[in-house]
């Protein structure tokens, strides 16, 4: 059984490798990291030794890739945190207070990955508004769309993140 499963996983990753790497690259920002993420996803699935049959192989693979991207992003974040705590009081000052930071540490990695999975105009509308402080009117002019479309994009980004947070549970 386990051998069959591993053979299947191997075929699956071979078949969709390029697509998975492209997806992972989108989630974490560069190609090298994308390769690493897909490799992590594969190793983790192999190590799981589960006996549950894989119903939808492709979406199974992509979900595993997304989860590996979250782990990867969270690792990056923790490395950054360590560096900040060590050598820059200033940066730590700018970040939220310790308790609030602890509470959503891992959630932050999830949110980053979910947002990167969005189609570019949707992600961009959200980033411009939430992270860069632009008004809907400014974003509409920049993207050449209506303000109601901007609003729809941002709401969609939020709903997308929320439903994936619920789906991934305490991943």
């Amino acid at each position, binding site marked *: 059984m386990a051998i069959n499963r591993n053979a299947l996983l191997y075929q699956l990753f071979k078949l969709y490798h390029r697509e998975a790497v492209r997806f992972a690259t989108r989630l974490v920002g560069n190609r090298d990291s994308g390769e690493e993420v897909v490799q992590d996803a594969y190793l983790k699935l192999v190590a799981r030794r589960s006996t549950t049959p894989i119903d939808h192989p492709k979406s199974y693979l992509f979900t595993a890739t997304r989860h590996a991207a979250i782990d990867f992003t969270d690792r990056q974040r923790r490395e950054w945190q360590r560096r900040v705590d060590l050598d820059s009081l200033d940066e730590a000052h700018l970040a939220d207070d310790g308790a609030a930071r602890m509470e959503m540490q891992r959630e932050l990695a999830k949110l980053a990955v979910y947002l990167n999975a969005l189609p570019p105009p949707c992600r961009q509308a959200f980033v411009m508004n939430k992270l860069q*402080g632009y008004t809907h009117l400014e974003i509409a002019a920049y993207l050449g769309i209506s303000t109601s479309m901007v609003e729809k994009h941002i709401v969609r980004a939020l709903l997308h993140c929320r439903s994936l947070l619920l789906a991934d549970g305490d991943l």
Partner: protein
Amino acid sequence: MNDLADTQADPVEEALHWIVRLNSGAATPEDAAAYAAWRTENARHAEAADEAERLWAAMGNLHFDRRSGRVLAAPKQGLTRRGALSLFLCLGASGVAGGALWSSGLLDRLSADFATDTASLEVIDLPDGSRVSLNARSALDVDFSDSIRRVHLRAGQAYFEVAANPARPFEVMVDELSFRAMGTAFDIVRDLPEARAELAVTEHSVRIRTVSGDMLDVGEGEVARIDRQGRIGAAVKTDVSAVTGWRDGQYVAEGRSLEEVVSALSAWHRGVIVIMDGQLKKLRVDAVLDLRDANGSLDVLQGGLPIKVRHVSKYLTIIS
């Protein structure tokens, strides 16, 4: 109103719609009041609003990496001084090429050589040895030539410490307004509620020049404003160190309007602050405030002004 019917099933979705609208830049005080009322209608709404606001707030801690166009959970290395310099070298030409685009006035922080987001501050070392501190939500383009060191303040506020070089003057542009210095230190903030720009000189002097040919030399320890019509006001002696307090996370208001104070706090705050009454915007404020704690700062103001500050939630504050 199709989407309203859809959202009624899920109050969290409805709350998210509210939050997005309140953060659109076009929300009215009535919108804020309506949300506050919706929130308190019943326990389900309150709970949903808490959840939606928590999600919205959590997302404020994400970072955007301009180079890869990706959202990150941690800032990329942080812009070290060396990093900033190499970024400058990469983008050196874009300041000139981007010139025409700026007239639209909308691209400001997006394509600038240097830009800061909400609640972030950056120190940039320019190749000539001058140093620029960039306040939150600000943007700067660098456009140096052999004869002149010109920079454009595209948005927000910056403090300039200029390396002396009489042969190559240093000039800051705020659109068509020019601020020229030889070797000095000064602060410029643009687009205040009641002025086009404000200059505060901490060392030597700076010459303001408008397109219509008006000119004013502003000396050490003086502040001058250019009003919305482009007229230069008188240079006034002030405590200029108060003007540059933002570099240490402090906002020193000396006779500033409440509207101006709230706009300064907003660049450092990941929530919405609404002033309900137009008259209140004109109130004069004297206070030292913590930019990193907008809500706390507003509470301080409440102690000394005829205003009521209501924190509907951590991310919505109503001043009435």
